[in-house]
């Protein structure tokens, strides 16, 4: 029996014994997520136990090193763990921007002290993180941010405003881009700092979207004191960390829209509109738009698989993440437009389908607009010059 087979058998046994029954429903929707943190109210005893047990093994972050609270697994072992979890329908024990965003950046840029301080708390779900990147008025030009961190001796004094901070009202800590040098060129005066959202001077305000309420907040900083040991990487070199995180985010978004596919448009149309005497969806012009969307969806899936195969084979995604982000989000918007067309007047009522449709309009804006992605493709893949 190979090591991996042994690992699989042990993992299977452990999961069988330790995964609570109500955590085995395979739920992947946001409502069933456990976000952890100081303010978290567990939805069930099972959810609490599941987080504790997985957190204790470091399996909330299986590939992180053990010394930082991770599981210390290699890629193959992590894949086995995921397969075995899927096999019993085990929920993800823990969602946290600390896991998906801050952690990878911290492992790369953080000091030893910072890693030992922050990463285990993420792994165990004790601290919930939010991200302070975007600012009103900056839009796609992220680096034009104006939130300032002035030198206060052993601490910074932070003033300014962030926007699009997901769950800022529920998070415990924030990782945040701030300006530490106003005179430097805009990319060179930015630093990456961490602070407690309960610090004096921090306040938040939820943002209502066109699709209804949202996890997004505006976040305000009024003379917030941040100890200098909370600076990650060097002062004025926060843009390195930001770029690292942004590329990572883009890849996640592209893959997300490529893989989710959404409900099959054709079946939905057959169900809701019926077929004509030739067995075709009974709305010929709408049908032909559905066909084109399916062609494009399947071709995009092929591209995604090809990219993933290359990526798995060790080739870097690089600017290709922009290709995925651009097309995946535009396609998702198109699919939701078509679901609205299929749904007709029923879909025009205030409800889930119309709200989902409206929400998709943000897909081509958040995480870098489609225009920015096209610009990245033109510049970095096609080597076209700056205008």
């Amino acid at each position, binding site marked *: 029996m190979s090591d991996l087979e042994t690992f699989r058998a042990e993992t299977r046994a452990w999961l069988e014994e330790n995964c609570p029954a109500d955590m085995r429903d395979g739920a992947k929707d946001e409502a069933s997520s456990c976000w952890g943190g100081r303010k978290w109210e567990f939805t069930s005893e099972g959810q609490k136990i599941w987080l504790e047990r997985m957190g204790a093994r470091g399996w909330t972050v299986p590939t992180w090193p053990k010394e930082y609270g991770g599981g210390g697994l290699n890629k193959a072992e992590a894949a086995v763990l995921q397969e075995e979890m899927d096999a019993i329908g085990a929920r993800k024990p823990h969602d946290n921007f600390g896991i998906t965003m801050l952690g990878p950046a911290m492992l790369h840029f953080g000091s030893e002290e910072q890693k030992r301080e922050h990463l285990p708390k993420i792994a165990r779900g004790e601290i919930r993180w939010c991200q302070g990147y975007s600012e009103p008025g900056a839009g796609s030009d992220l680096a034009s941010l104006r939130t300032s961190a002035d030198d206060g001796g052993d601490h910074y004094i932070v003033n300014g405003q962030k926007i699009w901070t997901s769950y800022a009202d529920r998070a415990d800590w924030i990782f945040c881009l701030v300006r530490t040098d106003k005179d430097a060129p805009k990319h060179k005066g930015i630093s990456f700092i961490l602070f407690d959202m309960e610090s004096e001077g921090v306040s938040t305000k939820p943002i209502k979207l066109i699709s209804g309420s949202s996890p997004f907040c505006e976040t305000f900083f009024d003379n917030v004191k941040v100890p200098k040991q909370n600076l990650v990487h060097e002062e004025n070199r926060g843009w390195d960390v930001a770029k690292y995180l942004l590329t990572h985010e883009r890849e996640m978004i592209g893959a997300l829209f490529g893989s989710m596919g959404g409900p099959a448009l054709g079946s939905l149309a057959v169900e809701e509109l019926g077929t004509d005497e030739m067995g075709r969806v009974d709305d010929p012009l709408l049908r032909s738009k559905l066909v084109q969307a399916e062609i494009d969806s399947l071709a995009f899936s092929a591209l995604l698989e090809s990219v993933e195969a290359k990526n798995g084979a060790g080739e870097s995604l690089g600017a290709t993440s922009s290709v995925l982000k651009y097309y995946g989000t535009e396609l998702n918007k198109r699919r939701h437009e078509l679901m609205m067309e299929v749904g007709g007047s029923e879909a*025009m009522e205030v409800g889930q389908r119309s709200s989902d449709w409206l929400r998709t309009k943000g897909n081509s804006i958040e995480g870098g607009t489609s*225009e920015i992605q096209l610009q990245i493709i033109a510049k970095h893949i096609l080597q076209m010059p700056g205008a």
Partner: protein
Amino acid sequence: MILSDDQQMLREAAAGFLSEKAPVSALRALRDKGEDKGFDPDLWQEMAQMGWAGIIVPEDAGGAEFGLVGGGLIAMEMGRHLTASPFFSTAIVAASGVSAFGNDAQKSDLLPAIAAGELLMALAVDEGRKHAPAKTAMVAHRSGNGFSLSGAKTFVVDGAQADKLIVAARTGGDAGEQNGITLFIVDANAKGVSRTAKAMVDSRASAEIHFDAVDVEADAVLGRVDAGWEPLSHMLNAGRAILSAEMSGSAATAFAMALDYLAQRKQFGTNLSAFQALQHRAAHLHTEIAMAEAASFAALAALDARAEDAPRKTAVAKAKASQVSLLAAQEGLQMHGGMGMTDAFDIGFYLKRAKVAGELFGDASFHGEALARDLGF
């Protein structure tokens, strides 16, 4: 098209009045109040006093007799401001049907009241999620001297507020046939009528209405028994062309808002409106909006002239304007960036209205199909 002096004045009056009394903030306030009326009755009274409720009603019935082109000028301005009112349901759709196909008693009963803003009427035609008037299945049985109506209607604009409903029901033929449909003018509070207001994404009022053996007299028929297709098409086409004009106005304003936003915002040290890629998209959109507006008024003029190709022009206008207003709102929102996604900005309201108005009385696919049939392919 070239406007007459009267038309020009009408348009300017509408623009002035609406920007003062019914800007987008009025629709927002209406929505936030959470009432399901979908419009402001006091505002409608003011519009009626300006003659808009009777804009297509003949002068001898108390109307302004401006025809659909006149109506379209008002609708376009309403589109710009997303003004919610029973103008569409009552002043255009119902009034066009009663004016052209009502008998003397119906005309004298209804038209002066419509023109005075005292009577609200709604057309109940759709029965499924997609507009398909020929598929009308609701049944009207002969019963005594009159008829008994049973069935359900959906997407009835202003249906919950209307005093009277114009209902398409089948007195003969099968679903799918144009023959055998009859129109009835039904008291909205008659026994057997139950109405449910639906919260629509554009914050307007729409209703689902059930008819459970609703009795009407023989004189409730609008037009002739079994021959309701003609007056129904007449009303639908009037509504479609007016919606097209409304959507042209909405598209133009959504676009103008986006251009304003671009002009105000800087990124990477440059004004957003100086980005060539956005300029080309804007120039294309300008062209599309110009086409939608031209097609809309060509349809309105053809309907006023009762031209033979009026249905074709109406199909083109509704198809094109539905597509263009959606495109303008989509592009407008994207050009607003993240701000466009917030409810605090107005652009989202234009997107929502574009979707609903595009669907109402047939979307672009419906009218494209109608055009293809008309052109014989």
